[in-house]
């Protein structure tokens, strides 16, 4: 069962032929609160990584007040994640339709798509489809004679992982450096330009038209229990067929790997899997092969579904080196506001580099773990946790590979 990538539609004619914008027509016969109820019934959860119930998020927006905003988070910077790009390439109008419906539900007249700066081509695609929707009166004043006005503006970022954090993203739309805000107040009350704001991921919004057309109950029936619906997984690493896959939640990883990804490439052996983007705890091959792909199963396995950015790590990859690559990334991307993250990420990166270069000691490994533990939950935003989780799990599950570096005999790095 596919929803988001069932049919490709690069332009509005094809999208409408495929049944697109039917949800929008239906929605104007509903009251905004009924739209929110429908989304609540669907059990749709935020697909950016946090998994927060979407309908509930919408219901936090105050009913009164002059100005509200809807923001689509298309920053997609979590290493291993490239699924929103696929929606923009193959079914961009589903995102716009979802946004217009969300705007109607929360009473926003203005929507922003914040897209990472490097996605220049994708920003152009969005500008093109927005113009198409405007020509057909799906955007603009008095949409389909409903009395509802809605506009969408594309804002390009300029290269900063932190801008995927929702309050940093708001700062960036406002033209400032992207440093996360203290919460509370939450964006639902004080968001963009100080007004109530909902921030949803591309994949979340693109699922909304289906929920409106088929009903929340139909969507809730898909998937596995509390993990309703379909989820995109973007898979990288040495499998035969890397790419973006839409699957119903609850699919066993083993089955996914063998039947859809075509298994490992010739000569490659599975060692570990990062299931939901580089921030989540790593699983060993054994752990991965036992788990299913849904929020609850992955939590039980000690990791997270996150963004669905799945990185397959083969036997030939040294885990000490892999963790250093990630630590270097988080250190580079720390915005610098909070000392535990700014300093901790730098320390971990330095320690791991020393270990890789052969000057490390057992104490270094313990120090790295301890620093990571002291970063968890101590900062304004989760970037510190995002390095701490891989650090702790890599060191715990693959300690012997780090020890090989201390002894100066890592065969994997010598190759």
């Amino acid at each position, binding site marked *: 069962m596919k929803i988001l990538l069932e049919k490709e539609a690069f332009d509005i004619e094809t999208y409408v032929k495929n049944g697109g914008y039917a949800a929008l027509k239906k929605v104007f016969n509903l009251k905004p609160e009924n739209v929110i109820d429908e989304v609540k019934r669907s059990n749709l959860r935020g697909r950016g990584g946090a998994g927060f119930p979407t309908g509930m998020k919408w219901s936090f927006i105050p009913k009164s007040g002059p100005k509200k905003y809807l923001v689509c988070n298309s920053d997609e*910077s979590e*290493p291993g994640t490239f699924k929103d790009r696929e929606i923009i390439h193959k079914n961009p109008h589903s995102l716009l339709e979802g946004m217009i419906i969300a705007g109607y539900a929360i009473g926003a007249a203005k929507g922003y798509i914040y897209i990472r700066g*490097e996605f220049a081509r994708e920003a152009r695609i969005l500008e093109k489809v927005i113009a198409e929707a405007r020509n057909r009166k799906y955007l603009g004043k008095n949409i389909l004679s409903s009395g509802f006005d809605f506009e969408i503006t594309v*804002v390009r970022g300029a290269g900063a992982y932190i801008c995927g954090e929702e309050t940093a993203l708001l700062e960036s739309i406002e033209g400032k450096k992207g440093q996360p805000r203290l919460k509370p107040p939450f964006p639902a009350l004080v968001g963009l330009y100080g007004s109530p704001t909902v921030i949803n991921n591309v994949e979340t919004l693109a699922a909304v038209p289906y929920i409106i057309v088929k009903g929340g109950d139909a969507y809730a029936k898909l998937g596995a229990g509390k993990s309703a619906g379909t989820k995109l997984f973007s898979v990288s690493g040495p499998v035969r067929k*890397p790419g973006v896959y839409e699957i119903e939640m609850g699919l066993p990883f083993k089955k996914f790997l063998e039947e859809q990804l075509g298994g490992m490439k010739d000569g490659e052996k599975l060692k570990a899997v990062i299931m939901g983007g580089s921030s989540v705890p790593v699983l060993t091959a054994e752990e991965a092969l036992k788990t299913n792909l849904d929020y609850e199963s992955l939590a039980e396995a000690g990791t997270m579904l996150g963004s669905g950015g799945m990185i397959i790590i083969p036997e030939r990859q040294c885990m000490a080196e892999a963790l250093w*690559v990630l630590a270097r990334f988080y250190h*580079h991307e720390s915005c610098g506001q909070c000392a535990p993250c700014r300093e901790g990420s730098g320390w971990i990166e330095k320690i791991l580099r020393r270990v890789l270069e052969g000057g490390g000691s057992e104490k270094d490994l313990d120090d790295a773990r301890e620093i990571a533990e002291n970063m968890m939950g101590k900062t304004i935003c989760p970037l510190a946790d995002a390095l701490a989780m891989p650090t702790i799990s890599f060191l715990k599950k693959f300690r012997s590979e780090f020890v090989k570096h201390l002894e100066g005999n890592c065969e994997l790095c010598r190759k």
Partner: protein
Amino acid sequence: MLSENFKTNYKKITEKAENAQSSLLALLHEIQRENRHIGEEDLNGLSELTGLPYARIKTVLTFYNMYNAKKTGKYHLQVCRNLSCHMAGAPNLLKRLKEKLKIKENEISDDGLFSYSEVECLGACGTAPVVSVNETYHENMDTLKLDKLIEELKAIQGQRSKGTK
């Protein structure tokens, strides 16, 4: 110096903005699109044009990775170094660039055509390794394709300079 062309585009970029600061990222993108980097003179000019303090513009410029405060080559290559690209051979691409262009990271080749830098995840991990040239992605790269890409860019430039003679 901000060009006349920029001043025309400035109006378009800022006309629907919520306030003077809102368009800052877009304005910096536009300057870089024209000049491939954003110099001190541009910051002063932009400060005058927007009414924003110089320091506030500079803080934004230096926060984001995509803005180049220094000159780059005509073709600025960015090689992703994050995990998926790393496993797929990104270190070899960087080594190759260094050898072939005979420059280090963020230096400009003698002909002014090329510069390169290592960057973090570009969000195209399924087609790793990825190299972007200015704003265009080149995916599933290897050293052979990289050589070919550089030759192609040189050839384009060769044709252009013939045309102007």
